[in-house]
């Protein structure tokens, strides 16, 4: 019962948030995969938040790929018998 009320409450909050967003002047049209229904616009604050999250993820992905490259290089060194 309590869970249902919580679900209804969060649903109502989400709908309210969307209604507010739609009333704002569109600053940037960012459609994010399945995470947001297409055609909805973000205000300045939300755009900045999305870009910040995307930048952080891109940076981490770059670091991860760089480390993987180094690891592959070192594995190659070991496999061709230059180390150990």
């Amino acid at each position, binding site marked *: 019962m309590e*869970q249902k009320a919580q679900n209804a409450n969060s649903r109502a909050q989400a709908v309210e948030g*969307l209604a507010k967003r739609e009333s704002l002047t569109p600053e940037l049209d960012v459609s*994010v995969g399945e*995470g947001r229904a297409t055609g909805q616009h973000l205000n300045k604050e939300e755009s900045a938040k999305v870009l910040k999250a995307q930048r952080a993820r891109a940076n981490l992905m770059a670091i991860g790929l760089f480390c993987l490259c180094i690891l592959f290089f070192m594995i190659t060194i070991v496999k061709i018998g230059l*180390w150990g």
Partner: protein
Amino acid sequence: MTQTVTDRNTQSDSMMADYAIVADWRDFIALTKPGVLRLVVFTGLAGLLAAPGSINPIIGFTAILCITLAAAGAATLNQWYEADIDGIMKRTSKRPLPSGRMDRTSALHFGIGLSALSVFLMGVAVNWLAAGILAFSIFFYAVIYTMWLKPNTPHNIVIGGAAGAFPPVIGWAAVTGDVTALPIILFAIIFIWTPPHFWALALFVEADYSKAGIPMLPVTHGKAETRKQMLGYSVLLLLVTILPWPLGLTGALYGLFATGLSAFFLVLAVQVFRAKQDDAKKMRYEKKLFAYSIIYLFVIFGVLVADRILLGGA
């Protein structure tokens, strides 16, 4: 049950689609269940260090990295599939998917990506036996346990425990390229340790499992039966944990520690068996056993490595 889960998945998808935005990188970390990863990585490392022979440090590091990535991928796939159930349970409702901080497709791609990378890297850099066991462990956890056993049988955690028992075998196989008696016993230790560990938790969050419709043993057979089963598994755990010593696979250091630690595990299980407490807030013996069981596994595997390497126990 499967149909119900599918229906709920569809519902939660449409609900989340409304307000989820670009997920923060911390949410991706949360998907991998970092708390569980620590134990998986540690037991994998213990298997690798306890194995006879040597391994190049880079290859050894790669093997442990692959075990970590595989466990992270399997945990992500688990959270992807159980997003609806997690939303119902208080303990898991704050996770990225049920709280709507991330969309399910991103989680699915992340989980498949990590799993595929781990198996490929293990095969190419280490050996294909270790990669094969790694691939099977991911499949076992994400498909056999998460999708089939967990929603359908109270024996879910008994059989599903095998998924978490593979890391020391993989670590061992990474060094030796084969699987002998000791890694099988290490597998058995984690396999038998899992039911009392998980049921201790299930006893004090039983209401959550009941609400989510997951047939955990306390939900289907009651708390008294669960406590009885926990005691039985604890006796079995004592016997299996000591086994490497009389078989000559470890020395006295491991044997004495294993006996003492497992005996204390059994004492806590007896306390749980005799407690007969039904109020989740007052289950101090169950909480104590749950906390101790984590420390227990860390120490058992730590002492095993110390015995095999530092003191040449084998």
